[in-house]
């Protein structure tokens, strides 16, 4: 199962790789990283969507996480991939919008990696 992390922040890759070093080494998690919505859609073209879990930030330059979600769900409203949205603290409007568009879960920054780890394990 590929976990595609979509975030315009480069340090997210570093953070995830260091935070889940053991899980990555153990082969429990396999991360891929995209810096934008467009890049993510390009990546998804050659992937088996059932084997992908998308973890996407909402506020990004260019295509936002919400737009990415809308485009993915417009093609297959109920089918995979599993999509978890991440946004800044207390952005209730984005939460409601994402859930309405078919997001599977919602996380707020700063990420609670313990909680994230549990959610990822339960989703894989």
């Amino acid at each position, binding site marked *: 199962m590929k976990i595609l992390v979509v975030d315009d922040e480069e340090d997210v890759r570093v953070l995830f790789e260091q935070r889940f070093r053991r899980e990555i080494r153990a082969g429990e998690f396999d991360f891929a990283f995209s810096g934008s919505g467009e890049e993510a859609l390009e990546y998804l073209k050659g992937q088996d969507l059932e084997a992908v879990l998308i973890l996407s930030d909402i*506020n990004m330059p260019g295509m936002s996480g919400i737009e990415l979600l809308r485009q993915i769900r417009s093609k297959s409203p109920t089918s995979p991939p599993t999509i978890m949205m991440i946004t800044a603290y207390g952005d209730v409007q984005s939460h409601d919008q994402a859930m309405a568009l078919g997001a599977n879960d919602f996380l707020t920054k700063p990420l609670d*990696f313990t909680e994230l780890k549990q959610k990822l394990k339960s989703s894989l």
Partner: protein
Amino acid sequence: MKKYICLFLFISTTNVLFAQFFKAVSVDSLKNELTKAKHDTSKILILDKLTAALTASNPTQALRYGREAWALASKIKYDKGKILSALSSGQIMLNTSDYAEALNKLLEARYLAGKSQMTKEIVNINLKLALLYTNRKQFKSALEYLSKAHLVRDSLQIPDLDYSLNQTSGYVYKDMGQFQKALGFFKNAYQNLITKKAAHQLSTTSYYIGSTFSALNQRDSALAYFRKSLSFQAKFHEGRVYYGLASVFKASNQLDSAIFYAKKALTRSNENQFIPITVFSAQLLSELYEKKNDLKSALFYTKIATAEKDSLFNEEQIRQIERLAYDEKERELIIQRRSEVHQADLEDKIKIYGLSTLLIIVLLVLFFLYRNNKIKHKANQILHSQKEEIDTQRAKAEKALQDLKATQAQLIQSEKLASLGELTAGIAHEIQNPLNFVNNFSELSIDLAQELKEEIEKVSIPEKDKEYIDEIIGDLTQNQQKINQHGKRASSIVKGMLQHSRSSSSEKELTDINALADEYLRLSYHGLRAKDKSFNSDFKTDFDINLPKIEVIPQDLGRVLLNLFNNAFYAVKEVSHLEGVGHLGKVLVSTQQSENQVIIKVTDNGIGMSEATKAKIFQPFFTTKPTGEGTGLGLSLSYDIITKGHGGTLEVESTEGKGTTFIIKLPYI
């Protein structure tokens, strides 16, 4: 008897005004007019003309017409007619020596003329009365009437009267024996007539001048004027002119000529019923015949003279004249008294009219003063009411200005806060991500340090180095913890900032404000007590039980109330710290409704605020609390919730050292 004889000498002159009646008026035509006259006044005037026309030729008939005119004028109360009639008839009576009736008529005419203010007639009447008294040898009275006539003439300047005045004056003075003075008046009279060419009057005046020269014994002059008088062919005068000529001839002892003219005088005077001349002529003839020793003729003429004289001066007539004179004095006294009474009445009337006029003027002045005062009072009232209105409007304007200034200040504050809020929200978003990394990486580093320590345990290194490595790892861990701690603190601040920009998703709902305030008050108090067991404060509520439920977002309003309560309890706690446990803090929460508003007041007796603090209290990040105890966003957030979220106002009243009151006003409809 002698005095009466002297009187006869002058009675012949009584027609001094007689000539004016000799008018070229046909008696027959006047009689004809009389029969056709329709009105009584016209009749009276015609009768008067007939009287004048017949005076010389037929005095008896003339007097009859005169009496008829008088009676008719009396009947219709036509005073002018009576006056004219009295003048005409009076003249005839003077000519015929009927003095008693003449006096009676003239006095009444004078009274009526005075009443009617007929000035010219008054002068003529006075002149006739002067003649009458002259004939009666009562010169004092004669001069009085003459003087009155002169006075009136001088005051009115009536030239027509000059002849009559001169003629009468000459007559009076001649009779008084002042011949030169008389001659002067007669000559003046003659001069008055020259231009008028009045033959009869010239004849009369010439006769008087001649008779005056005769009295002065200037016989030639006398004869010349007598002859001039005869040249005017005034038959009425011929009797006395002949008598004058006879007298002059007698004086020059020309007896035959004197007898000739004396007989002519007797004949003419008999024709004209001129009794005095008849008497004088008869007496002169008797004397002349006596001188000529013709005693028979002398006796004859003596008898004639005696008979005529008796008819002229009988005792009864004398008494009557005296009685009339007395009556006239009485009448004058009565008239004078009446005049005095009339004058007094007039003065009284003038006084009454004057006083009445004065009273009316005073009343008018008072009325206008009252009116002016009333107008002024009304104007003052209007001004006063206008001033009050202006004051009211000014007060309203000032209040509106103050409200406007307050609203403007509030608006500026709102705008400032809004822009600041938007700015901080933007900043918060930007800071949030790096902070997240700081927090995440610091946590991760703590875990990594722990892993490093565990990994080092697995390798064999000298104890001394191991201890050093442990110490460094310990310091790194501690540093990471500090980074994480402060990162989270910063994150907390950012969270508060983000709350400003976050729009509430909650819906407004009808809420019991009293219950909400009570719930959050207790929550605040017990929350503070949980953190600080030493904290104690009194709190009370004063809720309006009739307060209506209003549409609010309960979570947001609860957050505001919690903020205000926390601040209030914090303020009283500060005083307790400063003043010791003796000070008991008090927090009062009250609600009330006013003009479609619900008002919530949160009052404390805490440390209060300075003016400078009050000015900044709603600005974000402004706080008086020590570092770490407050973010400075509570009141700023509360302000936004009340003003933007609910359309209300949040105000603060505070006195430094005494306490603070926050006032929330929420509109409801």
